[in-house]
């Protein structure tokens, strides 16, 4: 049984969601193909994603993601809500990076209205966004290990997440859906003791990251499972609109914090870790090093955080952006989260399109899964970081 050559770059026959033709060599006995439905309730799909596989033995012929189980009609809902409500709606989608989602809505509205958040608010936003990024990456760091059978990193990751959630709770009052951003600034200033605890946490997490290095990155079996598995060339990644850590792992250092700095990212010093081969190991490695970079940014915020107000002195009573449109992109934890906002001068947006990284990551899955072994499905799926809420919106 022969499987058609995999195109290394460029177009796929049929594209994602389409069955890729399998050529069965004529002279041999055709083996029976098996259809296996992974999900919607499956431990390794992070929510309700379903992947329909056709298998030849344990080798995957085609993989078709089936999404929509968590579709919550964000686009339609936001046409019936005002801007403050949308902030609360938006942070539900990628539930692992709630602050990053809110930030985009606030920035888009601010840009249309011509408001600029005060200095301090911008620094704090950056601080929160980076902590949120660490929170998000820790989750994937842990769960990826778990999917490969290493259960300990998961518990370690949750230990660290617990600490960070406590920190976030101090400022925002929430543990997951922070709703801390406001159009124009922030809900409240940082509470007393927040920065001290934040500094302690940076040190603690930096120290504990060594555990992950020992348990996963330096682990022979982990390397055997991930090196050379699910190779995604940079060109293919781009053609699918893949952004964030997955794109970085494929060797493309595209990060809007660098190329189009928003907030105060131009004033802090950090690097964009990139991978060499674009395999599962690289994606994981990039994620790990992104945490280190986020911690670096957080430390710089500690040092540079100015005093001042957190909301502009004079805000209009009603948020009514003037007629116009804009697209704001932010480098969220998993990649580019963008908001395409069209306003007709009303309290509600005329159209708000949420562009999420997970949607594009998942649309690329059929490419990565073709021809891999079923156990590698996990090594691949786990390294294509996505949150189902972020896929379906």
């Amino acid at each position: 049984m022969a499987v058609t050559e995999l195109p290394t770059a460029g177009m796929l026959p049929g594209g994602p969601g389409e069955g890729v033709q399998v050529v069965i060599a004529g002279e041999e006995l055709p083996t029976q193909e098996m259809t296996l439905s992974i999900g919607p309730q499956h431990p390794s799909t992070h929510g309700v994603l379903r992947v329909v596989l056709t298998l030849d033995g344990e080798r995957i012929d085609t993989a078709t993601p089936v999404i929509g189980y968590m579709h919550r009609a964000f686009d339609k809902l936001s046409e019936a809500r005002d801007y403050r409500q949308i902030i609360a709606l938006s942070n539900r989608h990628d539930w692992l990076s709630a602050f990053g989602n809110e930030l985009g809505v606030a920035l888009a509205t601010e840009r249309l209205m011509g408001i600029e958040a005060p200095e301090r608010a911008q620094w704090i936003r950056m601080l929160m966004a980076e902590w949120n990024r660490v929170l998000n990456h820790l989750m994937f760091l842990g769960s990826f290990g778990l999917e490969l059978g290493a259960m300990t990193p998961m518990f370690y990751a949750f230990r660290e997440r617990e600490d960070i959630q406590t920190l976030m709770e101090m400022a925002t009052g929430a543990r997951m859906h922070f709703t801390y951003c406001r159009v124009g600034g922030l809900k409240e200033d940082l509470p007393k003791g927040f920065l001290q605890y934040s500094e302690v946490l940076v040190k603690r997490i930096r120290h504990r990251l060594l555990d992950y290095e020992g348990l996963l990155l330096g682990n022979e079996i982990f390397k055997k499972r991930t090196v050379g598995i699910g190779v995604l060339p940079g060109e293919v990644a781009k053609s699918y609109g893949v952004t964030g850590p997955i794109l970085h792992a494929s060797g493309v250092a595209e990060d809007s914090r660098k190329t189009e700095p928003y907030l105060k990212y131009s004033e802090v010093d950090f690097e964009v870790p990139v991978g060499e081969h674009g395999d599962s190991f690289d994606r994981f490695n990039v994620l790990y090093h992104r945490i280190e970079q986020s911690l670096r940014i957080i430390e710089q915020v500690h040092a540079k955080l100015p005093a001042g107000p957190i909301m502009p002195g004079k805000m209009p009573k009603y948020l009514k952006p003037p007629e116009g449109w804009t697209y704001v992109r932010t480098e969220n934890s998993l990649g580019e989260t963008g908001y395409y906002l069209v306003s007709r001068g009303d309290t509600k947006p005329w159209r708000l399109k949420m562009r999420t990284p997970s949607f594009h990551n998942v649309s690329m899955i059929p490419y990565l899964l073709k021809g891999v072994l079923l156990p590698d499905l996990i090594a691949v799926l786990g390294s294509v970081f996505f949150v189902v809420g972020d896929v379906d919106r």
Partner: protein
Amino acid sequence: MIFYHFFSNPWAVFALKLAAVFIFFLTAPLVLGYVEHKGLAHMQSRLGPMEAGRFHGWAQLIADGVKFIQKEDIVPDAADRRIFMLAPMIVIIPVSLVFLVIPFGPAAVSCHAPAGTGGCGFWGENFDVGIFFVLAISAISVIGMLMAGWASANKFSLIGAIRGAAQLIAYELPLVLAASAVAMQAGTLSLVGIGDAQKAYWFVFPQIAGFIIFVIASLAELSRPPFDMPIADSEIIFGHMTEYTGIRFGLFLLSEYAGIVSLSAIAVVLYLGAWHGFIVPWIPGPIWTLAKIGALSFLVIWLRATYPRLREDQLQKMAWKYLIPIALVNILLTMIFKVVF
């Protein structure tokens, strides 16, 4: 006097031994399971069970057992009913039989036990071909696994069972080869004889390669991490056990932990000097055996906290390309050693 009469009747002693073996078979997995709960928890910076039985959740597994018994025993509609129900027994019976031959101590000095009552000593039965018995009987469990996977009428179960069977076939060979090198070294197939032969030195020293192979192969036989692909939860839910509930599922779990204890015990007898102690040799042999079994079982648990799992083909490659050739060379070296010295 009545005690004397009782103990002088070999059949009564044999019955007593059987009862002791049965109790050990039921309790050792529970203790091990509890150690796994707590040990794993502390390695992962959490507490583990804390409620059942008040003191550090010591009764957790008993509570689990009660729960398993109470739960409904569901047989899927599409399943092959009889085979589905039979499979857990086929898995657990061979594992329990292995406990019969584990020697915990040396033979008694004066002994008049008639044939068939197992002789005198801390074991259930002393077969002439003990090690062979262990390997043969534990191979039967695979059939139960295949039956469970096939009869469940679930694709995940079937994949799990097929993986399990492939794994067990591949690792049966290095296991037997490593064990036969020990048998050659000791000059006997009897487990008691092999234990006796380690009076001067433990076989782990001359047979270090064999020991490592034996441990790796045992882990694979037991489907324990890093070789737990047959039940890889993130891929195929729970392999051949996916459709099982209640007491039948409990039997599968019991057999897993009993398997850890029994294979650790066999490794202790084959390599780690059985009941022979060191530094403090006045401690009785059975306690030494138990301590060593405990240490080896703990290693099995420890590995679970440390390693991710390998892939099926990597596992097969390891067996056929490395373990089996090394085991064969090991036999050859043992042979030369035996002939020369």
